[in-house]
């Protein structure tokens, strides 16, 4: 009973035993519950401690608990796409194992606490910086309208138009920033729903298609024959598809095509690869990878992105042409939002592009496992 209980605990727990300080082959973990095995990516319940964890601070804390019989704690961070932060506590255990001392090592997840802190700081810094430009322009025009443009109706109309555009820009920025910080807060919560990706794409295409003709851009999309079930949050899936389509439309030249393709059952390497021989970079990669992915590719015939700009694409407020590209209405947050959503969904985002040849944006979601699973959660 007790063993089952420990195994089921949500916090990772290890029991460590050792004979002497610096006897590394004698330093073993004798118990690792399911959460610990997942965190440390091990498959066995006992083995050499150093094959499970190598962080010097954690090892020092373990040594202290084992051989000085003192409580010790330290911070521990995982590496990889989704960094998680833990507070590790080592406590000496009073056991009667001949020649061995034992200690209990617990991991307490502090990722969310740290994330809230960091998100708040980032939000303030980004928001104030990005709002400064439209704000300065607004107050400049107000000053002019109060001053020498007061009695000039043509100038007044023109200025009010510019002010409207700036206010719109500010509104978009605030909307994007709030949605980004909300997404960030949920980034470590696995998605709960199951969504038909084909259906979502179809809906977004339908909603976006009316924008096409005004720019003389054709959207090409063939709905898949059957449902494409992915493990995802519906709203966020819509946002991903929407942002990618918006970008593709925005950067397409008049008369261009935007092609949308859906493929299913691909491995992560196949999903991330580009069909053409363009320079390619993956901005989010799943870790660890799932069995099969549903892959959405958006092809545009825009100006393309120079190779040296590819790694910066998902950076906040980064725009390839600098802020001068502001004739394209955008906040520079669209891909950052996509990146965070894909990271939450344990999916991937990759870009292939060459100057003058257009771009291919690829996102891939892990597919929902069984059909029964999909039906149960579809509502």
């Amino acid at each position, binding site marked *: 009973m007790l063993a089952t209980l420990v195994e089921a605990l949500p916090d990772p727990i290890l029991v460590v035993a050792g004979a002497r300080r610096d006897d*590394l082959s004698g*330093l073993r973990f004798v118990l690792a519950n399911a959460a610990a095995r997942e965190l440390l990516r091990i498959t066995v319940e006992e083995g050499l401690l*150093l094959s499970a964890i*190598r962080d010097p*601070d954690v090892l020092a804390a373990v040594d202290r608990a084992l051989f000085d019989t003192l409580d010790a704690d330290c911070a521990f961070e995982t590496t990889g796409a989704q960094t998680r932060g833990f507070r590790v506590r080592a406590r000496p255990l009073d056991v009667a194992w001949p020649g061995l001392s034992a200690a209990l090592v617990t991991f307490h997840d502090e990722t969310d606490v740290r994330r809230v802190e960091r998100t708040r700081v980032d939000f303030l810094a980004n928001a104030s910086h990005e709002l400064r430009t439209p704000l300065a322009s607004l107050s400049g025009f107000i000053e002019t309208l109060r001053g020498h443009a007061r009695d000039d109706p043509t100038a007044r109309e023109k200025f009010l138009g510019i002010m409207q555009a700036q206010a719109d820009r500010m509104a978009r920025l605030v909307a994007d920033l709030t949605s980004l910080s909300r997404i960030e807060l949920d980034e470590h919560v696995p998605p709960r729903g199951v969504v038909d990706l084909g259906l979502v794409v179809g809906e977004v295409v339908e909603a976006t298609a009316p924008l096409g003709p005004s720019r003389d851009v054709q959207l090409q999309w063939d709905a898949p024959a059957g449902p494409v079930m992915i493990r995802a949050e519906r709203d966020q899936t819509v946002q991903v598809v929407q942002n990618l389509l918006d970008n593709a439309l925005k950067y397409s030249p008049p008369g261009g095509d935007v092609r949308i393709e859906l493929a299913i059952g691909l491995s992560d390497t196949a999903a991330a690869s580009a069909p053409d021989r363009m320079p390619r970079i993956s901005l989010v990669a799943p870790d660890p990878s799932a069995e099969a992915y549903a892959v959405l590719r958006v092809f545009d015939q825009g100006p393309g992105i120079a190779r040296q700009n590819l790694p910066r694409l998902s950076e906040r407020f980064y725009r390839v042409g600098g802020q001068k590209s502001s004739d394209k209405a955008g906040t520079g947050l669209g891909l950052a939002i996509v990146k965070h959503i894909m990271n939450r969904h344990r999916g991937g985002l990759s870009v292939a592009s060459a100057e003058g040849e257009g771009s291919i944006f690829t996102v891939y979601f892990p597919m929902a496992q069984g059909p029964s699973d999909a039906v149960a959660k579809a509502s």
Partner: protein
Amino acid sequence: MNEHIVKSYEDELNSLTAECARMGGLTESLIADSITAVVKRNQELAAQVVIRDEKLDEAERDIERKTIRLIALRSPVADDLRRAVAAMKVANNLERCGDLAKNIAKRTLVIIETDPLTPLTRAIERMGKLVLGRLSSVLDAYTRSDLERALAVWSQDDEVDEHYNALFRELLTYMMGDPRTITACAHMLFVAKNLERIGDHATNIAEIVRYQITGEEAAFTRPKTDALSV
């Protein structure tokens, strides 16, 4: 002294791998701290990294000594011999990584004297995270004898190169734009190059893991899409 305590042969081999793992942990934290120091402009941390590198040199000498002792006294063959040789080679690669981290820390001390270059440090941070992730992955593969994971690291080196090339171009733009940034940018360039070389060491370790498990040497070359580096 514990020399007279006779340990089992298997224990001795396990200790070697474990010591490499411990050294790997030290290396990872050294690299992570050197990246934090350069990104957050933390002078104290940078100075610490320079001092802590000595521990790695010591660990490497220790592993080498123990390996030679084991080979001399136990004359291992086949798998066991490969494990011993691999330990020595891994330690050697880790020691080089430590030197590179130390070099990053030393350059940080110079970079701190100049004005901050925010977008660049962000690129460095991103590249650092990528390289550190690769090293972690390959050390996981080593400590768990996981051939598949080692091969995954081995075949994905082009991503680091892509980051390095992008940073290289960005630095050139900065230097051309404002000659006053040349000192800091030149140091940043070396920081990026050091990170790229740490990535290469991770690839080397992946090859060693493969050798340890299969006995095969890396015969064919990895895919390269690099136009810049020579």
